[in-house]
């Protein structure tokens, strides 16, 4: 009968070993929340460090149209991130990073739909939406790989570092601005990218367990909810990285 399907969820899975359910949340979900809180501290520390280091460098004062890269001042982000694959030489500020943002939001939506299907014990639905979530995650990682590669190899506008002309970026020098600019780019987007990577791994494990029918035998799809929380958090962090690194 249809209505026997989710009876298990509230009665058995949420009870802790003490026999009660603190805050009406299962142990796994609550611990995931506390982990995410600690991770939020890490990411805020990185972003606050970005803000502090940025404002201890001078900003570009001239006219926006005449902007050129220099070691003297912090670059305007949309002048740095203005390339799109296959459109070489076309000035398209923030377009590519916008595509990445929409990809990540969409994969967050498909994750919500997977959780919703899991509540209804709909195995086919969980399979379908987890697969779309995986596609979104891998697409985002691919975009980021391209962006890093472009950032490291450099844009057409080269810049003089000391007596040498320098193209691209590494941890000591970069053509876009002060050394800290590239260092923070690598650190913050790299740390976030690593979270996306591990999220894709978790999603794959849960997808695999769904396809093999393991979660159905367990009797509930709470694993989908737990990795879902992690995946939404990765999206949440990207919303902040997008604003503070690319827009402002």
């Amino acid at each position, binding site marked *: 009968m249809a209505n026997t*399907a989710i009876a298990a969820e509230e009665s058995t899975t949420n009870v802790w070993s003490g026999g009660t359910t603190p805050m*009406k949340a299962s142990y796994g979900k609550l611990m995931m929340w506390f982990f995410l809180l600690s991770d*939020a*501290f890490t990411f805020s520390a990185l972003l606050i460090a970005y*803000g502090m280091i940025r404002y201890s460098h001078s900003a570009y004062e001239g006219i926006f149209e005449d902007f050129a890269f220099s070691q003297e001042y912090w670059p305007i982000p949309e002048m740095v991130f203005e390339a799109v694959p296959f459109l070489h030489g076309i000035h398209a500020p923030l377009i590519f990073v916008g595509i990445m943002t*929409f990809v990540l939001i969409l994969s967050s939506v498909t994750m919500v739909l997977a959780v919703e299907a899991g509540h209804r014990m709909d*195995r086919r639905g969980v399979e379908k939406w987890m697969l779309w979530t995986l596609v979104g995650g891998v697409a985002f990682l691919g975009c980021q790989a391209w962006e890093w590669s472009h950032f490291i190899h450099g844009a057409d506008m080269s810049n003089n570092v000391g007596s040498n002309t320098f193209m691209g970026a590494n941890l000591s020098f970069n053509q876009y601005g002060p050394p800290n600019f590239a260092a923070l780019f690598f650190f913050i987007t790299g740390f976030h990218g690593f979270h996306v990577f591990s999220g894709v791994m978790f999603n794959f494990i849960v997808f695999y367990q769904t396809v093999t029918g393991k979660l159905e035998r367990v009797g509930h799809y709470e694993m989908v909810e737990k990795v879902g929380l992690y995946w*939404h958090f990765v999206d949440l962090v990207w919303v*902040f990285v997008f*604003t503070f690194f690319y827009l402002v």
Partner: protein
Amino acid sequence: MEQHNDQVQALPADPAKIRKIWKVAGFLGAITAIEFIIAFTIPPGGARTFVFIALTIWKAFYIVSEFMHLGHEKKSLIMSIMLPVLFIIFFIFIMMYQGARILDALN
């Protein structure tokens, strides 16, 4: 295809719930689109930065409250996640103060 007697029967989807999910998704997309329009039309400045931060927090609220379902949890759970965030706000202010002092020292 009736070989499994113990096959779990999936419940039918609730269209209102699905519509709600896509509505929130539409909101998030729309806010991001507004951020783009602002980024392309309005020159950088203090007010623009403030609007960006406000829109970001608005988006964050939707993600945490709806997608992560925190808005529908028990109040004690909401509080145990949201109150420690005060530390982050404290950290922002203390580092702004510190940053201003470092700027003074450098100049």
